[in-house]
């Protein structure tokens, strides 16, 4: 299981309805994108971080491990805004206002990523996917996503073992061997995926498969107090940003 999904299964908010957590986490992400980066993004960032490490109970090491990947890419992505092509200083020069734009972008992406992580770290995919049918996502698409999700872990596990076996047989000893091993890995993933689907089909056919995958979903109700509190927090963050912008202006 992937680290974020594993953490979501053990989260304190595991039993909460996904809508509760979507309003809060994705609402913060929406604010991070929609509000002025300064001071909106820092407010969203602090709120999301406090919720993640506080009520949601996500260990900070686990959070950092997941967060450092998008954050690192946001950082290097923002660096390119410092430069421009074809300016008055030559073919490549420092962009006017580049540091401000880069800083704003970094703030916005950092805050937005934390909002999504708040949702992801508290909501297992197995809780979310079956409920997408109620959001009018066609049932066949949800079924395909469910099979993809469950089979993906098995295939990744297979790839890991095959790669270990290849390494033990000096499959990565030279560049040519590396290419051969990689091609074998890709082809084996395809073969195993289809073989597994075929076996799954046989097993389901024996159980009267009619084209619908029925899975148990833990019961949960949308919590009105939680949702109201979430909306209140979002309103406070938005209002505070507006006030600070006015004061700054």
């Amino acid at each position: 299981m992937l680290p974020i999904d594993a953490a979501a299964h053990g989260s304190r908010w595991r039993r909460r309805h996904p809508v509760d957590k979507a309003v809060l986490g994705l609402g913060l992400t929406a604010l991070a994108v929609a509000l002025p980066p300064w001071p909106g993004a820092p407010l969203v960032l602090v709120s999301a971080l406090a919720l993640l490490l506080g009520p949601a109970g996500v260990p900070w090491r686990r959070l950092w491990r997941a967060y450092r990947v998008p954050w690192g890419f946001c950082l290097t992505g923002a660096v390119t805004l410092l430069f421009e092509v074809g300016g008055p200083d030559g073919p490549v020069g420092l962009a006017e206002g580049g540091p401000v734009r880069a800083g704003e972008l970094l703030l916005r992406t950092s805050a937005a990523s934390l909002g999504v992580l708040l949702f992801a770290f508290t909501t297992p995919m197995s809780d979310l996917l079956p409920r997408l049918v109620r959001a009018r996502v066609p049932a066949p698409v949800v079924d395909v996503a469910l099979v993809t999700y469950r089979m993906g872990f098995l295939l990744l596990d297979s790839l890991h073992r095959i790669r270990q076996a290849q390494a033990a047989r000096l499959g990565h000893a030279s560049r040519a061997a590396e290419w051969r091993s990689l091609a074998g890995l890709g082809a084996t993933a395809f073969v195993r995926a289809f073989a597994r689907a075929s076996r799954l089909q046989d097993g389901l056919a024996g159980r009267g498969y009619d084209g619908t995958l029925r899975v148990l979903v833990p019961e949960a109700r949308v919590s009105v107090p939680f949702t109201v509190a979430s909306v209140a927090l979002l309103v406070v963050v938005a209002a505070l940003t507006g006030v600070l912008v006015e004061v700054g202006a």
Partner: protein
Amino acid sequence: MVPVSQETGQGVSTIHEVLERVCPAMHIAEGFLPPAHAVAWGVASAPFVVHGVRSLTREVREHPESTLLLGASGAFTFVLSALKLPSVTGSCSHPTGTGLGAILFRPPVMAVLGTITLLFQALLLAHGGLTTLGANVFSMAVVGPWAGYAAYRLSRRSGLPLMAAVFAGAFVADLSTYCVTSVQLALAFPDPSGGFLGALGKFGTIFAVTQIPLAVSEGLLTVLVMRLLTQSSGGELARLGVLVAGKSSRAVAR
């Protein structure tokens, strides 16, 4: 720019490490695009995804067993990006898989499978994002597969051997994805003096240096994978329409 994963490590010891190295090469990160751009790219992607969803729904209603095969295809697409790809420059990155996916499963289905994969990557790996899902879908699940598939099909129609066509498909799919990402970023972040074209030149140059070698690498890898598949999985390839049934050595352009 959208950062490019460049790795030089050799061993991968755990699944987690494999997944931490899944390529975010062309994923535009969460919150990277201004709201108007995020919405616009979502709107641009929607018709292709809806078309794919209709194709997929029709296929599943007519053949219920297809759910499992399509799920397997989605899982294959998902793990394909976990493979480490040695670049011809000596560094290492990950394949996009859009070309191979389009050749095997066709672009409409890839629009759906790609969207599902990008959603999983955003939520399970923190790669890409939900606000940038539309932009990422447009480049990686729409333009990449369609351009790659067009190159593959044109190559086959012009009489090129299967493997040359597969290389062309994978190469074009990879490169076109990067080109679209460059355009998306240049539109969102035009240069103060050079404007859109200045920014496009900047992003395009950065991508060209890193991604043309990677596109060549992905083309080579896709050819190797397809060669193995024609030897080991002729039946499945025939079912997918890549090979003529019963003649594993002959291939057709669909």
